[in-house]
């Protein structure tokens, strides 16, 4: 029981560190789970991270996998709730604030100021993924990135084709 409470607390803190997504919380996650509490060893931590990346869905679910590894299904539940609830509550409050301020002349331009940051960080995430991918699988991976990027940018085909194509090309080339 105390372990579950500790997990809930730990992941609640991580939730508030994860600005921009799970990856910014990763160093802190490693520090707390591996170094501070010794709940996981280094290798397990990396494997679980890779596993969470392979699954669909928000990569914040890496927390759920770690929770499972530490304390089974209850651990997964507690880690997921801890990771989602504080941030979701804050988002709720901010959304309410934006709703109340609707019509204020500064709101739209202020929100507009966040747009280039949002797009820039998305692009950066893609570049980082591409680098990791090329580092692991070499130049053919970079070719897949380029073709996939061009298709998604220039056409309206479902990106599912791009991922499926990437999988097939991976089997053939990598």
């Amino acid at each position, binding site marked *: 029981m105390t372990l579950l409470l500790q997990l809930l607390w730990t992941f609640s803190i991580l939730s508030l560190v994860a600005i921009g997504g799970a990856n910014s919380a990763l160093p802190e996650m490693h520090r707390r789970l591996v170094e501070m509490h010794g709940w996981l060893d280094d290798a397990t931590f990396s494997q679980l991270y890779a596993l969470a990346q392979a699954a669909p869905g928000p990569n914040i679910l890496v927390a759920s996998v770690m929770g499972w590894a530490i304390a089974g299904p209850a651990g997964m539940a507690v880690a997921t709730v801890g990771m989602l609830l504080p941030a979701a509550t804050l988002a709720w409050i901010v959304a309410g604030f934006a709703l109340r301020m609707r019509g204020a002349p500064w709101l739209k331009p202020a929100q507009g100021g*966040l747009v280039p940051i949002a797009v820039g960080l998305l*692009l950066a995430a893609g570049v980082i993924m591409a680098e990791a991918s090329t580092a692991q699988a070499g130049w053919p991976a970079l070719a897949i990135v380029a073709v996939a990027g061009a298709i998604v940018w220039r056409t309206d085909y479902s*990106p599912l084709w791009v991922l499926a194509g990437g999988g097939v090309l991976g089997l053939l080339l990598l």
Partner: protein
Amino acid sequence: MARPIGLPVRSRPLPPTPFDSPATVSPGRADLFLGFLRIGLLGFGGVAAWARRVIVEERRWLTEREYAEILGMGQILPGPNVGNSAVMIGRRFHGLPGALLATGGMYLAPLCILIVLSLLYENFGQKPGVVPMMQGIAAGAAGMVIGTALKMAERLRLTVEAVAILAVAVVAAAWLRISLPLIVVVLAPVSIALSLWRAGLIGGNGAGGMAR
């Protein structure tokens, strides 16, 4: 509660573009849940890319700009940016039930898949073929995220200073590897100030406007 956060599309000062095209559809509760269920299920490699695909292109709940604004707010808040976006989009259309439905929908399928995957991983993780295929999918996902960002940048008709902010964000996050919280804390005030200046509001300064 169901009123949109933003002004109606037509009264916006931006010139209409072929992409930011007309009206958006207001989803019912079931639609909201199913839409986010789809986002979660499809969300390999980059949920923000898939969320944009489903919300802007497929279901037209939001325009390109509205989605980008909500994603931007999701990004400066702690927590997963798409998770924050789900809360805000859900609330916008259906209040608390909407926020719960959107959030629940998005996490349900991936959680189930992760449970199965955790159980299967030890048996299949190292089978020949699995690794190259996963690497290929990962490369495709990287391309998908890059392509989505380029598509958004193109359609949003960004101002010169917005393009500069975008470029700084990319360089800082992708090449300099500065931590995201730091980038957001430094860049958001600058970018918001520039945006207020562009809107002609900076004379009265942002904080003064906020107090009212």
